[in-house]
Structures are given as C-alpha cells and as structure tokens.
C-alpha cells in the first residue's frame, strides 16, 4: 500500500504514462484499496507475504468476465480450459467468495450449445450464486431473450434485464448496455433503464456503498473502438451523492482503473483472450495474439472485499499463470 496514483483523476482521457503504468500492473495481480478517493496499490506477491495482516472482510465476491465460450482461434484455442483454471482458482481460495459476478460475453456467438458448455463448467464452482449482465456476444441473434430466460432466474429483473440487490449493506446494481445499439454509436443504457436507476437509488442513504456492474465500460476508455457508454454520465449523475461507488466492467479484456471523485471504475481481465491496449497503433479491438507461455498471465479474475464501517472496497486482480 505504498504506491499512490498521483495523476489527475479529473482528466477524462487516459494519459499515456498513466495508461502504461496501469498496463504494467495488469496481469501481475494487485490489491486496490480505496480510501477517500485516494487509491493505493500493492502487488499480489506483497499480499502473500503479509497474508496474516490482511483485514477480515464482511463481504467478498468475485468478478469473472468475458469467458467467450465457443471461441477457438489462434489467440486461445481452448477457452474452456482457461475458464476451468479460473474456476479452480476460485475453488482454491481459503475463504470462498459469497457470490460471483459475471460481467458478460459468456459466449462467443450466443449459441445455445455455448451457453450449455458454460453452465456445465460453472457447476464445478463451489460458489453457487452467480449474478450476470449480458455482453454484446450474448445477445447477437435474439436481442438477449435466451440469455434473460436462463440467467436472471434469481433476480427481480426489469426491462431488458437490469436489476439490483442488497448484500451486507452494499447495494449492487446490474446494468445492461449492449442492446439496441445505434449505428456508429457506443454502449447504451437507454431512457427506461436510466429512469429505473434514478428511482432505484432514491431511497438509499448516501453512506450506502454502491457497486455497479455492466459489460461495456461506463467511462470513455476509448470511444473510437466503442469502448464506452453514450449515456453513462446520466447514470453516474444519479450516483454522485454516494460516498463510495465502485463500477466493475468487462469488455476490454484488460485491467484499467480510474478514480473520479468517489467513483472508482475498474475493468477486469477476460478468462479467454487478451485485447490490445486502447488505441494501439495498427490494432483493432479484437483478440490479441500473445506467445502461448504468456497467455495465462494476461487472463484473470477480480476479487472484491468490503468491510462494514469502512468506506473502502478492496479490488484485487489476479492472473491465471
């Protein structure tokens, strides 16, 4: 917890230095501790050494993302195997997480057999509660009908599949920003969902910790590649009064972090394949081919811990190598 991020968090873009620093951290595993909007980090290796000193948490959950079951190309010809490794890591945790959050792109092509394979694999996880939001790969042919019928059984979903729930005093909000996208546009929440969000948080005290999860980042990571959500500002406006807001996204297959006021934005690694750093010259936002021995260091999962009474949520990324 010795390194503070000192770059300007109000700045909307990602400055090259800050970005490269983030990327150097990605894949190595980090503990993020958020206190009063200041972010501190330490590597997983340091955590392992100081394991006994880690504070006990009241709630811990895990984010997995972008499993892309069905993908079988050069960047990772066996995405079921790497997904299994991720599940093994979860099963090996000394204290199992209370639940999992999957931030979308369960499948590659929205095929029923891909969803079936995912469901078979996820059965092996000791943690049984999983909360989902769809990725654009899960809603390709039917606008998400199949996804909604299968993955929203335990929640009180509204509209095209958004919902909220409470755990240990933390208010969780799952948003859908991959449907009804417009030509030339970005991810989109839409008026119905935004109105619901405004009403959903209305009765909550400002000291309620908020965790928002959605597939496409709710901040402008790199709009030229569609890595952003056109109406996310309005959503964040409804959350401005809260003292602690953690936004968890997937979609970009790499760890990026940004703090803006009381809001911490965080994107997770994929369990299937990495993608290029935003705006990499000559690249496109597709699978990034890396040497086989390097692949698992660029895949991973994210653990989040919350201790009641403290205003901080600790976010830890760990890779699969």
């Amino acid at each position: 917890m010795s390194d503070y991020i000192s770059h300007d968090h109000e700045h909307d873009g990602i400055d090259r230095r800050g970005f490269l620093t983030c990327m150097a951290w990605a894949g190595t595993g980090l503990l993020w501790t958020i206190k009063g909007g200041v972010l501190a980090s330490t590597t997983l290796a340091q955590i392992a050494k100081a394991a006994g000193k880690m504070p006990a948490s009241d709630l811990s959950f895990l984010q997995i993302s972008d499993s892309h079951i069905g993908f079988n190309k050069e960047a990772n010809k066996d995405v079921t195997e790497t997904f299994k490794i991720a599940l093994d890591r979860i099963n090996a945790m000394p204290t199992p997480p209370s639940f999992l959050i999957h931030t979308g792109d369960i499948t590659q092509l929205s095929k029923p057999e891909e969803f079936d394979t995912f469901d078979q694999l996820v059965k092996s996880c000791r943690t049984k509660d999983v909360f989902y939001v769809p990725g654009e790969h899960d809603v390709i042919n039917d606008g998400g009908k199949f996804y909604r019928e299968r993955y929203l059984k335990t929640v009180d979903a509204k509209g095209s599949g958004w919902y909220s729930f409470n755990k240990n005093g933390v208010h969780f909000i799952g948003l859908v920003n991959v449907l009804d996208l417009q030509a030339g546009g970005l991810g989109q929440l839409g008026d119905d969902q935004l109105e619901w969000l405004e009403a959903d948080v209305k009765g909550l005290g400002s000291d309620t910790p908020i965790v928002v999860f959605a597939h496409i980042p709710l901040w402008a990571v790199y709009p030229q590649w569609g890595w952003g959500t056109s109406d996310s500002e309005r959503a964040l406006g409804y959350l401005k009064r809260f003292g602690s807001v953690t936004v968890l996204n997937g979609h970009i297959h790499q760890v990026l972090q940004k703090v803006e006021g009381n809001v911490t934005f965080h994107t997770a690694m994929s369990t299937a394949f990495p993608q290029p750093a935003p705006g990499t010259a000559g690249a496109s936002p597709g699978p990034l081919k890396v040497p086989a021995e390097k692949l698992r260091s660029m895949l991973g999962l994210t653990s989040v811990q919350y201790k009641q009474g403290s205003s901080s949520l600790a976010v830890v990324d760990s890779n699969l190598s």
Partner: protein
Amino acid sequence: MTTFIRKTKMAVLIWGISTVALSVFADDGANSSAGGKSNKIEIKDFMFNPQKITVKSGEKITWINRDEEPHTVVSVGKKFPKSSGLDTDQEYSITAGAPGTYEYFCSVHPKMTGTIVVEK
C-alpha cells in the same frame, strides 16, 4: 414476465418490417437471376471494405467475415433482413432491391458502419 412484453412487441414489429423489406432487398437464395455481378464486401480489422459500395438493383451483395471476432450486418431502419452472427469466414448475401442509399452497421460493434448505393 410482463417486463418483457415491450421487447416481444418490438420483435414482432421487426419481423413485420423484415417481411416487408423482402420486397426491397431479397434474402439471397442460390444464384441471383438478374445482373449476375457479385459484389463482395470483406469484413476485416473491424471495417467493412469497401465501406461504400454502388450496385445495380438485382445484383447480389455478399459480406465475408475475415476477422476472428463475430460481426453482423444490420440495416439502419431495418430496410433489409439482418444477418445472424457471422463467425470467421462465414458469408451473408442479399440481393439489392429498390434504388436508394442504405446504411448498415455491425450490431456487435456499432462503430462499424457501411453504405450501399443501389442504382437502377
């Protein structure tokens, strides 16, 4: 389930529009009868190439996906039937209908857009 009624209605509406659109842009069966010229649009590096294509009414237009990512071909305003998710090397074809300008995009990556100009 009441929450999904709006979606269902929309799906019916889309279906209706698509059916009407068949008279404008027919979903291609085997070989197109008129014209005979094949207009290929390659999807590569998250771009439709050529991005703008001019064809004659009755000609066949074929997209082929050369990316590892799946893409779709979706008409703005639903003026012709949308493709399903195209995996690597999969194709989708339509036959150009009434003259006019048709915009389309990939619903998975909506930044990807293209234009078809149909001439008489």
